[in-house]
């Protein structure tokens, strides 16, 4: 028996007046399983435990949560990576309203994503087959398009915590730059005009929490720097 002490954030707004931490003992049989497996074992003990999950292989981005103080995807985070002193603390993603237990309301996160118009804009008549792009232009999108919108980055960002209604956040800005950098997109100046206020982009203070937590290894801080460069080039 190798028991793991797990402390989980619990909150059911229909029955609880305030959130609380519940302790569980989980038998991992000495295996280095993923945090999501531990949550499944907890759900066997207490079926009222609520969390999101789907693909369980780091592709869907459903099970973003705060594990021992760091955001990440539970399904691709092995215990050996997060457990310290035989103890694991699981909390919902910080800064977003909690719906129940580890399930958060992502509405504000999606609203900011929607705001940057995450789709290709090109009013020219479509060619017969497809809009072509040189291999060099295509390379510019690497490190940008891979985002799965798990919200680990934006919910680890203090600027997003304080102003989630005004600051686009690292996830939204990474996607914003994905379209600013796309040679086929023609709305560059309109996109930049939407971003030059003191909040949308410039509330980023470059502390790079987003880079530290991104489960896909992406770099929103670099993308934000590139957006600033484009804004500067456009306005000086």
């Amino acid at each position, binding site marked *: 028996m190798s028991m793991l002490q797990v402390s989980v954030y619990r909150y059911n707004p229909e029955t609880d007046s305030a959130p609380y931490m519940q302790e569980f003992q989980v038998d991992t049989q000495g295996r280095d399983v993923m945090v999501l497996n531990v949550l499944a074992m907890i759900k066997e003990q207490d079926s009222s435990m609520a969390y999101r999950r789907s693909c369980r292989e780091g592709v869907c981005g459903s099970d973003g949560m705060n594990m021992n103080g760091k955001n990440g995807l539970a399904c691709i985070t092995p215990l050996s990576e997060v457990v310290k002193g035989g103890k694991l603390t699981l909390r919902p993603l910080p800064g977003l309203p909690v719906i129940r237990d580890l399930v958060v309301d992502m509405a504000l996160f999606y609203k900011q994503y929607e705001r940057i118009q995450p789709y290709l804009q090109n009013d020219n008549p479509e060619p017969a087959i497809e809009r072509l792009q040189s291999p060099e232009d295509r390379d510019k999108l690497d490190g940008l398009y891979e985002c799965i919108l798990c919200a680990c980055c934006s919910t680890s960002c203090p*600027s997003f915590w304080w102003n989630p209604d005004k600051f686009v956040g690292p996830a939204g800005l990474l996607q914003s730059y994905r379209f600013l950098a796309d040679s086929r997109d023609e709305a560059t100046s309109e996109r930049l005009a939407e971003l030059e206020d*003191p909040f949308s982009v410039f509330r980023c203070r470059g502390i790079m929490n987003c880079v530290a937590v991104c489960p896909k290894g992406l770099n929103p801080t670099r993308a934000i720097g590139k957006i600033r460069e484009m804004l500067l080039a456009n306005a000086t």
Partner: protein
Amino acid sequence: MVTNITNFGRSGLSDWLIQRASAVILALYTLFIVGYLLLHPNLDYATWSGLFGATWMRIFSLLAFVSMAAHAWIGLWTVTTDYIKPTGIRISAQAVIILAIFVFLVWGVQVLWGA
């Protein structure tokens, strides 16, 4: 686009650029003053007064004062919008900060040219 009317340059881009440019000026001014004090261990009033009597030093000092004013406005405006959520308290705090910056700037000019 998020609308703002109490930030320094009315634009995040201009605030951002001014914040960086003013930081460079303030760093240079600080380095100069510290270096000057280190190189003049037995500094007397005449030398100190002579330094600030020179036109280039007055230009440099005024540049530093103006940079300080802009830098403080942009920085503290950001702090108020991060941490003070009730609008009335936030606007009041911003007004007090901007007023203080104005007073300090005029006071600085008077110190520089008053003597």
